[in-house]
């Protein structure tokens, strides 16, 4: 049985009394690409932020390589973070630094390698994502797709065992998004990375995933292989896969609010 790299158990998150995640449990195994699907507001990004240790849950545990990241020491958390690379949805490149400096930063900060070695490593990381010749440019000078790839180069700078992507295809045209999918698959096969991708792009998800998980209103409603997920009969999953909109205008709450706005509260029969 493959080693579990990330284990989420009973993760519950509440903000100001509102439950955003409700007892979510999920295991991600070494070397697999897990895609976490879900509609807007389903809790995907919240779950990701808890997995990478940026926020503390109301209850439940998140273990990365067996270490509970909410109850470990600061040194242990730093050690865990060194084994993870994160590519944020907004890319989060440092705008005051060139692309090259962005990739160099974690290598400079977390290793004692000599400058020429750092330069070679940086070039290799940028070349791996097709940005070998654009290292001197500033983030503002790059297109959306190039920024995403630069963020991947920075996330992989220290050869992490786990790579996390937040909405890698968001805002990209299909060709660039497909290129990014191939890059994720390349990283998986070339470096045997464990990859977690948070997405709502179905085509991309089915292209890259080994397994898919789906969050709906803070609860995990499915964790399946691609084929099993496609065949899933859960109404929410069917609605998501078949792109069926929610009947917003007919919902009782919306109708009641419209009546209230029109001053017809008492006119209900």
């Amino acid at each position, binding site marked *: 049985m493959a080693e579990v790299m990330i284990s989420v158990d009973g993760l519950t998150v509440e903000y100001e009394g509102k439950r955003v995640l409700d007892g979510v449990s999920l295991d991600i195994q070494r070397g697999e690409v897990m895609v976490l699907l879900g509609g807007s507001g389903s809790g995907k990004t919240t779950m990701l932020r808890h997995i990478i240790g*940026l926020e503390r849950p109301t209850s439940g545990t998140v273990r990365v390589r067996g270490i509970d990241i909410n109850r470990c020491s600061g040194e242990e958390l730093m050690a865990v973070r060194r084994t993870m690379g994160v590519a944020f949805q*907004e890319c*989060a490149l440092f705008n005051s630094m060139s692309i090259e400096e962005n990739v160099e*930063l974690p290598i*400079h900060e*977390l290793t004692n390698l000599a400058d020429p070695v750092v330069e070679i490593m940086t070039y290799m990381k940028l070349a791996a994502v097709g940005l070998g010749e654009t290292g001197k440019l500033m983030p503002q000078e790059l297109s959306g797709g190039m920024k995403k790839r630069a963020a991947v180069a920075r996330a992989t700078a220290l050869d992490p065992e786990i790579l996390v992507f937040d909405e890698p295809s968001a805002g990209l045209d299909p060709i660039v998004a497909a290129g990014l999918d191939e890059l994720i698959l390349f990283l998986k096969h070339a470096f045997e990375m464990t990859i977690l991708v948070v997405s709502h792009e179905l085509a991309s998800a089915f292209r890259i995933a080994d397994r898919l998980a789906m969050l709906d209103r803070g609860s995990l409603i499915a964790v399946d292989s691609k084929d099993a997920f496609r065949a899933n009969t859960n109404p929410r999953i069917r609605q998501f896969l078949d792109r069926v909109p929610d009947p917003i205008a007919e919902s009782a709450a919306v109708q009641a609010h419209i009546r209230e706005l029109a001053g017809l509260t008492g006119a209900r029969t």
Partner: protein
Amino acid sequence: MNVLDAIGNAVIQGLAYVGGLTMQFLSELRDSPRMLPLMGRRGRWKTAMQQMAAIGVDGLPIITIMSVCAGFILAMQTGSELRRFGALQYVMDVVGVGFTREIGPLLTALIVCGRSGSAFSAEIGTMVVTSEIDAMKTMAIDPIELVLTPKYIAAMITLPCLTIMSNTFGILAGAVFMYITTKIRLAMYLRYVFNSIELHDVLTGLLKSLIFATIIVNVGCMEGLRVRGGADAVGRSATSGVVRSTYLVILADAFFTAIFYLVHKD
């Protein structure tokens, strides 16, 4: 009961804010040795130097202009009163002592507060909004060490330097006034000013400038780190960074001036 709740909440929030500032300040002190050239972390001193240029070199023109104006205004206002008593020469005492003890450090702090304090809040606030601070944390890089501490070190070095420049230009503006009104030459003016200033006047002014630097950097950065939301939140953080650090600088000035007064009285 509601009034008590409101007062209690305000006190708790105030204490939490001061506690946060203190923790941030202690972290900066802990990380400060890493800013040193040769023995610190690679390249960190260069970041501190860039910040020194931004706070000090870029801020010098406005501090020069403001200090010259303030020195001249102070000399004119006191001169117009002292002239009636035939004591115009005391303008030199007022300008010399007033600038070194009070006006130089306070004026410099308020200008740096407006220029650099707001820039710190906006810069760090934008980094929060664009997830740059989160990205640093996920890379196991401490944002306080990488972003805040170079600013703190830079302010601790540049604010006393700017204060000395402000004192110098304020006092020289007084010399211009005295030359125009009484034809006192610069050499005699300076001799008179140096006789009236004591070493502790200069030192207390410089000590205050270090305290002001600590307040400006920590409040500015704290406001940036507290940003939640988008561009409007960044704007609000810049405003509240300036407002809070301005009144904390003035409160600290009143507090330390009172202490220096009590200590020196004996």
